[in-house]
Protein backbone atom coordinates (compact mmCIF):
# COMPACT_ATOMS: atom_id res chain seq x y z
CA UNK A 1 0.00 0.00 0.00
CA UNK A 2 1.31 3.42 -0.92
CA UNK A 3 1.81 5.57 2.19
CA UNK A 4 -0.38 8.66 2.25
CA UNK A 5 1.39 12.02 1.93
CA UNK A 6 -0.17 12.91 5.27
CA UNK A 7 1.47 9.92 7.01
CA UNK A 8 4.42 11.92 8.44
CA UNK A 9 1.94 14.16 10.26
CA UNK A 10 0.09 11.28 11.93
CA UNK A 11 2.45 11.03 14.94
CA UNK A 12 2.19 14.79 15.35
CA UNK A 13 -1.60 14.55 15.42
CA UNK A 14 -1.39 11.70 17.94
CA UNK A 15 0.95 13.76 20.13
CA UNK A 16 -1.34 16.81 20.04
CA UNK A 17 -4.36 14.64 20.81
CA UNK A 18 -2.51 12.96 23.66
CA UNK A 19 -1.58 16.38 25.09
CA UNK A 20 -5.23 17.44 25.18
CA UNK A 21 -6.50 14.11 26.53
CA UNK A 22 -3.82 14.00 29.21
CA UNK A 23 -4.57 17.54 30.39
CA UNK A 24 -8.33 16.84 30.61
CA UNK A 25 -7.73 13.47 32.27
CA UNK A 26 -5.50 14.90 34.98
CA UNK A 27 -8.03 17.62 35.76
CA UNK A 28 -10.93 15.16 35.86
CA UNK A 29 -8.94 12.80 38.08
CA UNK A 30 -8.14 15.60 40.51
CA UNK A 31 -11.78 16.70 40.67
CA UNK A 32 -12.89 13.09 41.35
CA UNK A 33 -10.23 12.43 44.00
CA UNK A 34 -10.44 15.73 45.83
CA UNK A 35 -13.04 16.61 48.47
CA UNK A 36 -15.59 19.39 47.86
CA UNK A 37 -16.41 21.56 50.85
CA UNK A 38 -17.22 25.05 49.56
CA UNK A 39 -17.97 27.85 51.99
CA UNK A 40 -18.91 31.47 51.52
CA UNK A 41 -15.58 32.79 52.80
CA UNK A 42 -13.51 30.30 50.84
CA UNK A 43 -15.24 31.30 47.61
CA UNK A 44 -14.25 34.95 47.97
CA UNK A 45 -11.43 36.23 45.78
CA UNK A 46 -8.13 36.03 47.66
CA UNK A 47 -6.72 39.53 47.74
CA UNK A 48 -4.05 39.47 50.43
CA UNK A 49 -6.57 38.51 53.12
CA UNK A 50 -8.76 41.59 52.79
CA UNK A 51 -12.36 41.53 51.64
CA UNK A 52 -12.39 42.26 47.90
CA UNK A 53 -13.44 45.80 47.09
CA UNK A 54 -15.19 46.36 43.79
CA UNK A 55 -15.04 44.17 40.72
CA UNK A 56 -11.94 42.88 39.01
CA UNK A 57 -13.57 43.50 35.66
CA UNK A 58 -12.23 46.96 35.11
CA UNK A 59 -10.19 48.93 32.65
CA UNK A 60 -6.46 48.48 32.59
CA UNK A 61 -3.66 50.56 31.17
CA UNK A 62 -3.72 51.29 27.44
CA UNK A 63 0.02 50.50 27.34
CA UNK A 64 -0.79 46.81 27.17
CA UNK A 65 -2.74 47.42 23.94
CA UNK A 66 0.14 49.40 22.48
CA UNK A 67 2.46 46.49 23.19
CA UNK A 68 -0.01 44.12 21.52
CA UNK A 69 -0.13 46.33 18.41
CA UNK A 70 3.66 46.56 18.22
CA UNK A 71 3.84 42.80 18.64
CA UNK A 72 1.61 42.25 15.61
CA UNK A 73 3.78 44.51 13.45
CA UNK A 74 7.16 43.09 14.41
CA UNK A 75 6.14 39.47 14.77
CA UNK A 76 4.65 39.49 11.29
CA UNK A 77 7.96 40.94 10.13
CA UNK A 78 9.78 38.02 11.73
CA UNK A 79 7.39 35.59 10.03
CA UNK A 80 8.14 37.20 6.65
CA UNK A 81 11.83 36.67 7.33
CA UNK A 82 11.51 32.88 7.73
CA UNK A 83 10.86 31.83 4.10
CA UNK A 84 13.49 34.34 2.99
CA UNK A 85 16.00 32.93 5.49
CA UNK A 86 15.46 29.33 4.37
CA UNK A 87 16.02 30.24 0.69
CA UNK A 88 18.61 32.83 1.56
CA UNK A 89 21.63 31.14 -0.01
CA UNK A 90 19.86 30.74 -3.39
CA UNK A 91 18.56 34.32 -3.40
CA UNK A 92 22.03 35.77 -2.94
CA UNK A 93 22.88 39.45 -2.64
CA UNK A 94 19.75 40.49 -4.55
CA UNK A 95 17.50 38.86 -1.97
CA UNK A 96 19.64 40.34 0.78
CA UNK A 97 19.16 43.86 -0.60
CA UNK A 98 15.41 43.36 -1.07
CA UNK A 99 14.95 42.20 2.49
CA UNK A 100 17.17 45.02 3.76
CA UNK A 101 14.78 47.51 2.14
CA UNK A 102 11.80 45.75 3.75
CA UNK A 103 13.47 45.69 7.16
CA UNK A 104 14.57 49.31 6.80
CA UNK A 105 10.94 50.47 6.50
CA UNK A 106 10.16 48.59 9.71
CA UNK A 107 13.23 50.01 11.44
CA UNK A 108 11.91 53.46 10.56
CA UNK A 109 8.68 52.42 12.25
CA UNK A 110 10.60 51.22 15.30
CA UNK A 111 12.49 54.52 15.51
CA UNK A 112 9.16 56.38 15.20
CA UNK A 113 7.48 54.52 18.08
CA UNK A 114 10.67 54.82 20.11
CA UNK A 115 10.78 58.62 19.64
CA UNK A 116 7.03 58.84 20.23
CA UNK A 117 7.63 57.25 23.63
CA UNK A 118 5.45 54.21 23.01
CA UNK A 119 8.22 52.02 24.40
CA UNK A 120 8.49 54.02 27.63
CA UNK A 121 6.63 52.20 30.36
CA UNK A 122 6.87 54.95 32.99
CA UNK A 123 4.54 57.79 31.97
Amino acid sequence: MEPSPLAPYLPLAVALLLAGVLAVAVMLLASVLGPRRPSAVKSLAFEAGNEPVGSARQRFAVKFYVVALLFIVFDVEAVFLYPWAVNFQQLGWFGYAEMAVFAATLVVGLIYVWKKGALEWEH
Partner: protein
Amino acid sequence: MSRTVFILVSIFLVIPALLAGVMMGAYALGGWLDGVWFPGAHRLTNILVLMLVFVMVLASLLTLAERKWSALMQNRIGPNRADLFGRPVPAGIGHFIADALKMLTKEDFRPAKANTFLYNLGPLLAFAPVFALFAVVPAGPTLEVFGKTVDMVVATPDFGLLFIFAIASLAVYGTSLAGWSSNNKFALLGGVRAASQMISYEVALGLSLVGLMMAFSTVQLPAFVGEALGTGQFRYLWGNDAAMGLRPGFDVGLPAWGIFLQPVAFVLFFAAAFAETKRAPFDMPEGESEIIGYFVEYSGMKFGMFMLSEFMEIVILSGVMVVLFFGGYHLPIGEEWLRGTELMRSYPLLLGAVLGMVFWLKVLTLCYLQLVVRWTFPRFRYDQVQKLGWKMLLPVGLVNVFVTGALVLWDPSLRLLALSGLLVIAVVLALTMAAPGEAPAEAHGEGHGHAHGDTTALPPSHAHATGHAQVHALNAHTAVPQKLETPERTPVAASH
Protein backbone atom coordinates in the same frame (compact mmCIF):
# COMPACT_ATOMS: atom_id res chain seq x y z
CA MET B 1 31.71 14.17 52.88
CA SER B 2 29.39 11.28 52.15
CA ARG B 3 26.98 13.80 50.60
CA THR B 4 29.69 14.98 48.19
CA VAL B 5 30.50 11.39 47.24
CA PHE B 6 26.81 10.69 46.71
CA ILE B 7 26.42 13.72 44.43
CA LEU B 8 29.59 12.90 42.44
CA VAL B 9 28.62 9.25 41.97
CA SER B 10 25.14 10.31 40.82
CA ILE B 11 26.47 12.83 38.35
CA PHE B 12 29.18 10.72 36.77
CA LEU B 13 27.84 7.16 37.04
CA VAL B 14 24.19 6.74 37.95
CA ILE B 15 22.59 9.43 35.80
CA PRO B 16 24.53 8.66 32.55
CA ALA B 17 23.97 4.93 33.03
CA LEU B 18 20.26 5.48 33.63
CA LEU B 19 19.90 7.72 30.56
CA ALA B 20 21.85 5.32 28.33
CA GLY B 21 19.82 2.38 29.59
CA VAL B 22 16.46 4.02 28.96
CA MET B 23 17.52 5.20 25.49
CA MET B 24 18.73 1.70 24.58
CA GLY B 25 15.41 0.35 25.79
CA ALA B 26 13.60 2.96 23.70
CA TYR B 27 15.40 1.90 20.52
CA ALA B 28 14.83 -1.79 21.25
CA LEU B 29 11.14 -1.18 21.96
CA GLY B 30 10.76 0.83 18.75
CA GLY B 31 12.49 -1.83 16.64
CA TRP B 32 10.37 -4.57 18.17
CA LEU B 33 7.07 -2.71 17.61
CA ASP B 34 8.04 -1.95 14.00
CA GLY B 35 8.57 -5.68 13.50
CA VAL B 36 5.30 -6.87 14.99
CA TRP B 37 3.02 -4.04 13.87
CA PHE B 38 3.75 -1.75 10.90
CA PRO B 39 6.84 0.18 9.75
CA GLY B 40 6.78 3.56 11.45
CA ALA B 41 5.06 2.28 14.58
CA HIS B 42 8.17 3.18 16.57
CA ARG B 43 6.99 6.80 16.41
CA LEU B 44 4.26 5.77 18.86
CA THR B 45 6.75 4.31 21.33
CA ASN B 46 8.77 7.49 20.86
CA ILE B 47 5.74 9.48 22.07
CA LEU B 48 5.64 7.22 25.09
CA VAL B 49 9.36 7.31 25.88
CA LEU B 50 10.29 10.87 24.95
CA MET B 51 7.19 12.83 25.90
CA LEU B 52 5.67 10.83 28.72
CA VAL B 53 8.75 9.30 30.32
CA PHE B 54 11.58 11.73 29.66
CA VAL B 55 9.89 15.13 29.59
CA MET B 56 7.26 14.44 32.26
CA VAL B 57 9.61 12.64 34.64
CA LEU B 58 12.39 15.19 34.17
CA ALA B 59 9.92 18.02 34.74
CA SER B 60 8.58 16.49 37.95
CA LEU B 61 12.10 15.73 39.16
CA LEU B 62 13.08 19.32 38.38
CA THR B 63 10.47 20.56 40.86
CA LEU B 64 12.46 18.68 43.47
CA ALA B 65 15.84 19.56 41.96
CA GLU B 66 14.97 23.23 42.12
CA ARG B 67 14.44 22.95 45.88
CA LYS B 68 17.54 20.83 46.39
CA TRP B 69 19.85 22.82 44.14
CA SER B 70 18.75 26.15 45.57
CA ALA B 71 19.42 24.65 49.00
CA LEU B 72 22.93 23.71 47.86
CA MET B 73 23.51 27.24 46.60
CA GLN B 74 22.31 28.78 49.85
CA ASN B 75 24.14 26.34 52.13
CA ARG B 76 20.95 24.68 53.32
CA ILE B 77 19.93 21.03 53.33
CA GLY B 78 16.63 21.41 51.51
CA PRO B 79 13.67 19.01 51.63
CA ASN B 80 14.65 15.74 53.32
CA ARG B 81 11.70 14.77 55.52
CA ALA B 82 9.36 12.74 53.29
CA ASP B 83 9.70 8.99 53.88
CA LEU B 84 8.42 6.12 51.77
CA PHE B 85 6.65 3.53 53.95
CA GLY B 86 8.52 4.77 57.00
CA ARG B 87 11.95 4.47 55.39
CA PRO B 88 13.99 7.57 54.49
CA VAL B 89 14.73 8.03 50.77
CA PRO B 90 17.89 9.73 49.50
CA ALA B 91 17.88 13.15 47.84
CA GLY B 92 14.37 13.95 49.03
CA ILE B 93 12.85 11.80 46.28
CA GLY B 94 9.88 11.17 48.56
CA HIS B 95 8.91 14.83 48.33
CA PHE B 96 8.03 14.81 44.69
CA ILE B 97 5.80 11.76 45.12
CA ALA B 98 4.17 13.41 48.12
CA ASP B 99 3.66 16.62 46.14
CA ALA B 100 1.98 14.78 43.29
CA LEU B 101 -0.35 12.93 45.66
CA LYS B 102 -1.16 16.11 47.54
CA MET B 103 -2.07 17.97 44.37
CA LEU B 104 -4.26 15.15 43.09
CA THR B 105 -6.22 14.79 46.34
CA LYS B 106 -6.70 18.48 47.16
CA GLU B 107 -10.07 20.14 46.87
CA ASP B 108 -11.03 21.02 43.31
CA PHE B 109 -11.84 24.58 44.27
CA ARG B 110 -13.46 27.31 42.21
CA PRO B 111 -14.01 30.88 43.39
CA ALA B 112 -17.68 31.89 43.34
CA LYS B 113 -17.23 34.87 41.03
CA ALA B 114 -15.01 33.13 38.48
CA ASN B 115 -16.18 32.31 34.99
CA THR B 116 -16.32 28.49 35.25
CA PHE B 117 -15.61 27.53 31.66
CA LEU B 118 -12.71 29.92 31.13
CA TYR B 119 -11.39 29.22 34.62
CA ASN B 120 -11.08 25.53 33.75
CA LEU B 121 -9.78 26.25 30.27
CA GLY B 122 -6.82 28.25 31.65
CA PRO B 123 -4.72 25.38 33.03
CA LEU B 124 -5.66 23.18 30.04
CA LEU B 125 -4.33 25.75 27.59
CA ALA B 126 -1.23 26.31 29.68
CA PHE B 127 -0.42 22.61 29.92
CA ALA B 128 -1.44 20.94 26.65
CA PRO B 129 0.58 23.07 24.16
CA VAL B 130 3.73 22.81 26.26
CA PHE B 131 3.33 19.06 26.47
CA ALA B 132 3.02 18.73 22.69
CA LEU B 133 6.14 20.82 22.00
CA PHE B 134 8.66 18.05 22.38
CA ALA B 135 7.14 16.15 19.45
CA VAL B 136 9.52 17.66 16.90
CA VAL B 137 12.76 17.53 18.93
CA PRO B 138 15.09 14.70 17.86
CA ALA B 139 16.73 12.97 20.82
CA GLY B 140 18.86 10.37 19.05
CA PRO B 141 20.21 9.18 15.68
CA THR B 142 18.39 7.04 13.11
CA LEU B 143 19.59 3.46 13.47
CA GLU B 144 18.99 -0.03 12.13
CA VAL B 145 17.49 -1.99 15.03
CA PHE B 146 16.48 -5.64 14.42
CA GLY B 147 16.52 -4.90 10.69
CA LYS B 148 14.14 -1.95 11.07
CA THR B 149 14.96 1.73 10.69
CA VAL B 150 14.24 3.40 14.01
CA ASP B 151 14.60 7.10 14.71
CA MET B 152 14.28 8.85 18.05
CA VAL B 153 11.83 11.65 17.28
CA VAL B 154 8.04 11.75 17.33
CA ALA B 155 7.55 13.67 14.09
CA THR B 156 9.83 15.23 11.49
CA PRO B 157 7.62 17.81 9.75
CA ASP B 158 9.35 20.24 7.38
CA PHE B 159 8.02 23.11 9.52
CA GLY B 160 9.62 21.87 12.76
CA LEU B 161 10.76 25.18 14.18
CA LEU B 162 7.54 26.92 13.10
CA PHE B 163 5.58 24.24 14.98
CA ILE B 164 7.52 25.14 18.11
CA PHE B 165 6.89 28.87 17.68
CA ALA B 166 3.21 28.35 16.90
CA ILE B 167 2.39 25.90 19.68
CA ALA B 168 4.54 27.63 22.30
CA SER B 169 2.75 30.92 21.73
CA LEU B 170 -0.59 29.20 22.46
CA ALA B 171 0.43 29.05 26.13
CA VAL B 172 -0.16 32.80 26.41
CA TYR B 173 -3.91 32.15 26.12
CA GLY B 174 -3.77 29.89 29.16
CA THR B 175 -2.12 32.47 31.38
CA SER B 176 -4.20 35.45 30.27
CA LEU B 177 -7.45 33.47 30.47
CA ALA B 178 -6.50 32.28 33.95
CA GLY B 179 -5.76 35.83 35.01
CA TRP B 180 -8.96 37.28 33.62
CA SER B 181 -11.44 34.53 34.48
CA SER B 182 -10.43 34.31 38.16
CA ASN B 183 -12.16 37.64 38.79
CA ASN B 184 -9.39 38.70 41.13
CA LYS B 185 -7.49 41.95 40.78
CA PHE B 186 -4.10 40.42 41.45
CA ALA B 187 -4.79 37.62 39.01
CA LEU B 188 -5.86 40.17 36.40
CA LEU B 189 -2.64 42.13 36.91
CA GLY B 190 -0.63 38.94 36.61
CA GLY B 191 -2.56 37.91 33.51
CA VAL B 192 -2.06 41.16 31.59
CA ARG B 193 1.57 41.31 32.67
CA ALA B 194 2.11 37.74 31.50
CA ALA B 195 0.40 38.34 28.16
CA SER B 196 2.28 41.57 27.53
CA GLN B 197 5.63 40.13 28.54
CA MET B 198 5.19 36.95 26.52
CA ILE B 199 4.22 38.70 23.31
CA SER B 200 7.00 41.27 23.74
CA TYR B 201 9.63 38.58 23.94
CA GLU B 202 8.08 36.49 21.21
CA VAL B 203 9.30 39.09 18.71
CA ALA B 204 12.91 38.72 19.88
CA LEU B 205 12.45 34.95 20.07
CA GLY B 206 11.33 34.79 16.45
CA LEU B 207 14.06 37.11 15.18
CA SER B 208 16.89 35.43 17.08
CA LEU B 209 16.75 32.20 15.08
CA VAL B 210 16.59 33.73 11.60
CA GLY B 211 20.40 33.76 11.46
CA LEU B 212 20.54 30.02 12.10
CA MET B 213 17.89 29.39 9.44
CA MET B 214 20.07 31.29 6.96
CA ALA B 215 23.21 29.38 7.92
CA PHE B 216 21.58 25.94 7.67
CA SER B 217 18.87 26.81 5.05
CA THR B 218 16.18 24.92 6.91
CA VAL B 219 13.59 25.07 9.69
CA GLN B 220 13.41 21.30 10.17
CA LEU B 221 14.97 20.28 13.48
CA PRO B 222 16.63 16.99 12.36
CA ALA B 223 18.20 18.96 9.50
CA PHE B 224 19.73 21.38 12.02
CA VAL B 225 21.22 18.45 13.89
CA GLY B 226 22.41 16.68 10.75
CA GLU B 227 21.76 12.97 10.17
CA ALA B 228 24.59 12.16 7.79
CA LEU B 229 28.20 13.17 8.24
CA GLY B 230 28.85 16.59 6.73
CA THR B 231 25.29 17.94 7.13
CA GLY B 232 23.83 20.31 9.67
CA GLN B 233 25.88 20.52 12.83
CA PHE B 234 27.42 17.06 12.25
CA ARG B 235 30.62 18.35 10.65
CA TYR B 236 33.73 20.29 11.49
CA LEU B 237 34.45 23.86 10.50
CA TRP B 238 38.12 23.09 11.00
CA GLY B 239 39.15 19.53 11.73
CA ASN B 240 40.81 16.34 10.51
CA ASP B 241 37.67 14.45 9.42
CA ALA B 242 37.15 12.57 6.15
CA ALA B 243 35.96 15.71 4.37
CA MET B 244 39.47 17.12 4.75
CA GLY B 245 40.92 14.21 2.78
CA LEU B 246 42.54 12.71 5.85
CA ARG B 247 41.79 9.37 7.45
CA PRO B 248 42.62 9.90 11.08
CA GLY B 249 42.34 7.39 13.87
CA PHE B 250 40.43 9.85 16.00
CA ASP B 251 38.78 12.94 14.57
CA VAL B 252 39.09 16.26 16.34
CA GLY B 253 38.08 19.76 15.32
CA LEU B 254 35.73 22.65 15.89
CA PRO B 255 32.20 21.37 15.24
CA ALA B 256 29.80 23.60 13.29
CA TRP B 257 27.54 24.06 16.31
CA GLY B 258 25.10 26.94 16.48
CA ILE B 259 26.77 28.36 19.57
CA PHE B 260 29.99 28.99 17.61
CA LEU B 261 28.17 30.33 14.56
CA GLN B 262 25.59 32.44 16.37
CA PRO B 263 26.57 33.27 19.96
CA VAL B 264 24.55 36.51 19.85
CA ALA B 265 21.49 34.59 18.70
CA PHE B 266 22.01 32.14 21.54
CA VAL B 267 21.97 34.91 24.14
CA LEU B 268 18.91 36.51 22.49
CA PHE B 269 17.08 33.20 22.25
CA PHE B 270 17.95 32.18 25.79
CA ALA B 271 16.86 35.52 27.26
CA ALA B 272 13.66 35.64 25.23
CA ALA B 273 12.74 32.02 25.89
CA PHE B 274 13.54 32.47 29.56
CA ALA B 275 11.09 35.36 29.65
CA GLU B 276 8.51 33.09 28.00
CA THR B 277 8.87 30.59 30.84
CA LYS B 278 8.05 33.42 33.28
CA ARG B 279 10.74 32.39 35.75
CA ALA B 280 12.91 34.75 37.80
CA PRO B 281 14.37 37.22 36.84
CA PHE B 282 11.36 37.51 34.49
CA ASP B 283 8.73 36.50 37.06
CA MET B 284 6.69 39.71 37.29
CA PRO B 285 3.52 37.86 36.21
CA GLU B 286 3.97 35.56 39.22
CA GLY B 287 5.84 37.79 41.67
CA GLU B 288 5.14 35.66 44.75
CA SER B 289 6.08 38.45 47.12
CA GLU B 290 3.79 41.07 45.59
CA ILE B 291 0.88 40.03 43.36
CA ILE B 292 1.19 36.22 43.60
CA GLY B 293 0.22 36.00 39.99
CA TYR B 294 -2.35 34.92 37.44
CA PHE B 295 -2.81 31.60 39.25
CA VAL B 296 -3.63 33.09 42.68
CA GLU B 297 -7.14 31.56 42.61
CA TYR B 298 -5.98 28.12 41.52
CA SER B 299 -5.25 25.30 43.92
CA GLY B 300 -4.56 21.59 43.82
CA MET B 301 -3.95 20.00 40.44
CA LYS B 302 -5.03 23.07 38.48
CA PHE B 303 -2.21 25.04 40.06
CA GLY B 304 -0.05 21.96 39.62
CA MET B 305 -0.64 22.09 35.86
CA PHE B 306 0.61 25.66 35.69
CA MET B 307 3.63 24.69 37.75
CA LEU B 308 4.33 21.49 35.84
CA SER B 309 4.04 23.27 32.50
CA GLU B 310 6.64 25.75 33.71
CA PHE B 311 9.05 22.93 34.51
CA MET B 312 8.25 21.15 31.25
CA GLU B 313 9.10 24.41 29.51
CA ILE B 314 12.54 24.23 31.14
CA VAL B 315 13.16 20.74 29.77
CA ILE B 316 11.79 21.57 26.32
CA LEU B 317 13.66 24.84 26.10
CA SER B 318 16.85 22.97 26.98
CA GLY B 319 16.04 20.35 24.35
CA VAL B 320 15.45 22.97 21.66
CA MET B 321 18.62 24.84 22.60
CA VAL B 322 20.63 21.62 22.46
CA VAL B 323 19.26 20.87 19.00
CA LEU B 324 19.81 24.39 17.64
CA PHE B 325 23.00 25.49 19.36
CA PHE B 326 24.79 22.49 20.87
CA GLY B 327 24.81 19.90 18.12
CA GLY B 328 21.83 17.82 19.24
CA TYR B 329 22.87 14.27 20.04
CA HIS B 330 26.30 14.61 18.41
CA LEU B 331 29.55 14.41 20.30
CA PRO B 332 31.76 17.47 19.89
CA ILE B 333 34.72 15.38 18.73
CA GLY B 334 35.37 11.77 17.87
CA GLU B 335 31.90 10.77 16.72
CA GLU B 336 33.11 9.67 13.30
CA TRP B 337 35.66 7.46 14.98
CA LEU B 338 33.03 6.10 17.37
CA ARG B 339 30.63 5.24 14.55
CA GLY B 340 33.43 3.49 12.71
CA THR B 341 34.47 1.16 15.52
CA GLU B 342 33.71 -2.53 15.18
CA LEU B 343 31.68 -2.62 18.40
CA MET B 344 29.30 0.16 17.36
CA ARG B 345 28.92 -1.25 13.85
CA SER B 346 27.86 -4.64 15.20
CA TYR B 347 25.61 -3.29 17.95
CA PRO B 348 23.77 -0.18 16.73
CA LEU B 349 21.73 -0.23 19.95
CA LEU B 350 24.91 0.72 21.82
CA LEU B 351 25.46 3.70 19.54
CA GLY B 352 21.87 4.79 20.17
CA ALA B 353 22.42 4.48 23.91
CA VAL B 354 25.63 6.52 23.84
CA LEU B 355 24.33 9.33 21.60
CA GLY B 356 20.97 9.43 23.35
CA MET B 357 22.81 9.75 26.64
CA VAL B 358 24.87 12.60 25.16
CA PHE B 359 21.67 14.41 24.19
CA TRP B 360 20.06 14.09 27.61
CA LEU B 361 23.26 15.03 29.44
CA LYS B 362 23.40 18.23 27.40
CA VAL B 363 19.74 18.85 28.23
CA LEU B 364 20.38 18.32 31.94
CA THR B 365 23.32 20.72 31.85
CA LEU B 366 21.16 23.43 30.30
CA CYS B 367 18.37 22.73 32.82
CA TYR B 368 20.95 23.26 35.54
CA LEU B 369 22.02 26.51 33.88
CA GLN B 370 18.41 27.73 33.93
CA LEU B 371 18.02 26.92 37.61
CA VAL B 372 21.29 28.71 38.40
CA VAL B 373 20.06 31.81 36.56
CA ARG B 374 16.73 31.64 38.37
CA TRP B 375 18.43 31.48 41.80
CA THR B 376 21.14 34.05 41.08
CA PHE B 377 19.39 37.14 39.70
CA PRO B 378 16.84 39.34 41.44
CA ARG B 379 13.56 40.10 39.72
CA PHE B 380 13.39 42.83 37.06
CA ARG B 381 11.03 45.75 37.35
CA TYR B 382 8.24 45.62 34.80
CA ASP B 383 9.43 48.67 32.86
CA GLN B 384 12.91 47.12 32.72
CA VAL B 385 11.45 43.98 31.17
CA GLN B 386 9.69 45.93 28.43
CA LYS B 387 12.80 48.04 27.87
CA LEU B 388 15.02 44.98 27.54
CA GLY B 389 12.65 43.31 25.11
CA TRP B 390 11.94 46.22 22.79
CA LYS B 391 15.03 48.43 23.07
CA MET B 392 17.75 45.82 23.42
CA LEU B 393 16.77 42.39 22.11
CA LEU B 394 14.72 43.54 19.10
CA PRO B 395 17.35 45.90 17.59
CA VAL B 396 20.19 43.48 18.35
CA GLY B 397 18.16 40.68 16.76
CA LEU B 398 17.60 42.73 13.59
CA VAL B 399 21.29 43.66 13.35
CA ASN B 400 22.25 40.03 13.93
CA VAL B 401 20.06 38.92 11.01
CA PHE B 402 21.72 41.22 8.52
CA VAL B 403 25.30 40.82 9.76
CA THR B 404 24.85 37.04 9.65
CA GLY B 405 23.34 37.31 6.18
CA ALA B 406 26.32 39.25 4.82
CA LEU B 407 28.81 36.81 6.37
CA VAL B 408 26.95 33.75 5.06
CA LEU B 409 26.83 35.17 1.52
CA TRP B 410 30.48 36.19 1.67
CA ASP B 411 31.66 32.77 2.76
CA PRO B 412 29.08 29.96 2.32
CA SER B 413 31.40 27.53 4.14
CA LEU B 414 30.37 29.42 7.31
CA ARG B 415 33.97 29.76 8.48
CA LEU B 416 33.82 33.55 8.42
CA LEU B 417 30.60 33.38 10.46
CA ALA B 418 32.30 31.08 12.96
CA LEU B 419 35.28 33.43 13.22
CA SER B 420 33.01 36.36 14.01
CA GLY B 421 31.15 34.14 16.48
CA LEU B 422 34.35 33.11 18.24
CA LEU B 423 35.39 36.76 18.35
CA VAL B 424 32.10 37.66 20.07
CA ILE B 425 32.54 34.82 22.58
CA ALA B 426 36.11 35.96 23.30
CA VAL B 427 35.03 39.58 23.82
CA VAL B 428 32.20 38.56 26.14
CA LEU B 429 34.51 36.30 28.15
CA ALA B 430 37.15 39.02 28.39
CA LEU B 431 34.59 41.58 29.58
CA THR B 432 33.21 39.13 32.14
CA MET B 433 36.66 38.30 33.48
CA ALA B 434 37.85 41.91 33.50
CA ALA B 435 35.10 43.33 35.73
CA PRO B 436 34.33 40.92 38.56
CA GLY B 437 31.83 42.11 41.12
CA GLU B 438 31.10 45.40 39.42
CA ALA B 439 27.68 44.43 38.18
CA PRO B 440 24.93 45.69 40.48
CA ALA B 441 23.25 42.30 40.47
CA GLU B 442 26.28 40.68 42.09
CA ALA B 443 26.64 43.31 44.78
CA HIS B 444 22.95 42.83 45.48
CA GLY B 445 23.37 39.07 45.89
CA GLU B 446 26.24 39.45 48.35
CA GLY B 447 24.35 42.14 50.25
CA HIS B 448 21.91 39.77 51.88
CA GLY B 449 23.67 36.48 51.60
CA HIS B 450 24.06 36.43 55.35
CA ALA B 451 20.33 36.19 55.91
CA HIS B 452 20.09 32.68 54.54
CA GLY B 453 21.72 30.40 57.03
CA ASP B 454 18.24 29.22 58.07
CA THR B 455 16.16 26.64 56.26
CA THR B 456 13.73 28.99 54.57
CA ALA B 457 12.45 27.72 51.25
CA LEU B 458 12.15 31.20 49.79
CA PRO B 459 14.48 32.46 47.05
CA PRO B 460 16.87 35.26 48.07
CA SER B 461 14.82 38.11 46.69
CA HIS B 462 11.61 36.80 48.17
CA ALA B 463 12.91 36.02 51.62
CA HIS B 464 14.29 39.49 51.80
CA ALA B 465 11.19 41.17 50.51
CA THR B 466 8.46 39.40 52.44
CA GLY B 467 8.25 42.10 55.04
CA HIS B 468 7.90 44.92 52.56
CA ALA B 469 5.68 42.92 50.31
CA GLN B 470 2.89 42.40 52.80
CA VAL B 471 2.64 46.10 53.51
CA HIS B 472 2.94 46.78 49.84
CA ALA B 473 0.26 44.29 48.88
CA LEU B 474 -2.19 45.76 51.38
CA ASN B 475 -1.60 49.24 50.01
CA ALA B 476 -1.98 47.97 46.51
CA HIS B 477 -5.24 46.32 47.44
CA THR B 478 -7.00 49.42 48.69
CA ALA B 479 -5.83 51.41 45.71
CA VAL B 480 -6.20 48.90 42.96
CA PRO B 481 -8.15 51.03 40.46
CA GLN B 482 -5.30 53.51 40.38
CA LYS B 483 -2.61 50.89 40.71
CA LEU B 484 -3.79 49.20 37.57
CA GLU B 485 -2.69 52.24 35.63
CA THR B 486 0.92 52.09 36.75
CA PRO B 487 3.13 49.05 37.06
CA GLU B 488 4.01 48.17 40.60
CA ARG B 489 7.63 48.41 41.41
CA THR B 490 8.92 45.38 43.21
CA PRO B 491 10.22 46.38 46.60
CA VAL B 492 13.30 44.26 46.01
CA ALA B 493 14.46 46.11 42.97
CA ALA B 494 13.39 49.50 44.24
CA SER B 495 14.88 49.38 47.71
CA HIS B 496 18.42 48.50 46.67
